[in-house]
């Protein structure tokens, strides 16, 4: 993969104590997938990623598995899907 292919990262990113957050709500497919994978590819340590999404990102899980990451769903307000991504390898 080439994480620097797109110079303008998609989605809104910020850092909190529990990890790096990314909000991909409102992006047209495959924007959310690309934004999340861009962020994940830029992380070299064990920092988790918290994804704020407006739908179940069905295409994401196989992509994550392919690069040694996994996803867990966390409790979230109605209308939002919150995922915690962490490196497995």
């Amino acid at each position: 993969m080439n994480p620097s292919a797109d110079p303008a990262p998609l989605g809104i990113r910020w850092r909190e104590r529990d990890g790096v957050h990314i909000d991909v709500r409102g992006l047209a497919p495959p924007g959310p997938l690309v934004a999340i994978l861009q962020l994940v590819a830029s992380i070299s340590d064990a920092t988790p990623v918290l994804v704020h999404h407006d739908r179940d990102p069905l295409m994401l899980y196989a992509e994550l598995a392919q690069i040694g990451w996994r996803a867990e769903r966390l409790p979230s307000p109605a209308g939002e899907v919150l995922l915690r991504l962490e490196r497995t390898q």
Partner: protein
Amino acid sequence: MKLAAGAFLAGATSRLLPASIPFCYFGAAVVFHLCAWLALLAGAGQLPRFSAGPGWPLAALHLVTLGVLVMTAIGASLQLLPVATRQPVRSTRWPAIICWLYTPGVAAVALGMGRGVPLLLGLGAAAVTLALIAYAALLAINLYGARGMPGVVAHGWAALGCLLVVLATALSLALTWLGLPLLDHATAVALHIAFAAYGFMGLLALGLSYILVPMFALSAAPDERQSITSCALVVAALALAALAAFGVAPQLLRIVAITVGSAAVALHLRQMLGALRTGMRRELGRSFTLVRIGWVLLAVSLAAALALALDAPLPGGPTLFGLTLIGGWLLTFLLGILQRILPFLASMHAARGRLRPPTPSSLSADRPLAIHFACHLTALAGLALAVVTDSPTLAALAAGVGALGATAFAVFFLVLLRRMQRPAPAA
């Protein structure tokens, strides 16, 4: 609350169909792919100068179009559109019924054409028509409820309109065979070819590409205005081709239609190549080599259509055009996409109930795909050479190589199914 991604997928609001439904369509397509090459082998003697009429070449053509291309397009669109346009799957019964009606219908159509049995052909055509009408209704419901992706949705509506023309002209051609023509035979054939290949199947291929190519290349969503413009140009080209088929300034309108169609293809390919160029994933492997070859042959098919419109002295011209359009563009493109999407879809389904889903690459088998790749391209080149040199022997050899490639593709599919059903390793 913590849920594994796979358990989340299995939720009641999932936009995934049960695995048995898309894999029923894709499995049938894999079987018909092999049958198509075998039918071509049986009709190799007629192939080099085939243009129309019952026999095994016509059966092979419909095994590819109905059996492989439309079968896969139905499976892919029923699965992908709800995912891409943010809708829950509304019905699992109807997609399953369509598959069970359509599959024997295609087999009966092919046998009826190959063996020249009008009753079998009629029964098969009735089953195929009913199944496609039911599919059209499902597609229309999906498109009507779609949220976002207006370019993909526009292609879907246009493909749906073309499907109606394809069904009407198919009915006319079938009735002509029974001595009850609705339309002039040449008009019906011209409309049927244009609206089936460039229209229904072509528009679905172009439209679904706006989802699949950026998804596999991991690039930003294509520009919606450009994809809608490309779609509008395809529709305009088809309308011009229809007027030409009805005898309105035929040569001039055919040339204008091809020019407008070429502009649509250029716009589409510019977006696709842009997605590949800017995507995060640069190594797309053998599957996208097939996709790229398919795109080149799409352009070549338009050049061949222009040569035919200009009455250029091309040996076996109509057959070469059909080969380039159906085998070269649509089949090559679809097999490239299919070998990419099958492991991905299998991984999504195998993820259910697992904390760590299997990776798509762990479900795939590379060697059968390598054999298929070599055989498919060799067979297409062999068929083209057989047509140019009017050689039934070469056509038979090429069909044999194609059948070997289709067998290899079937092995890839069986390995994938087996690995997908493998139980998850103990935690």
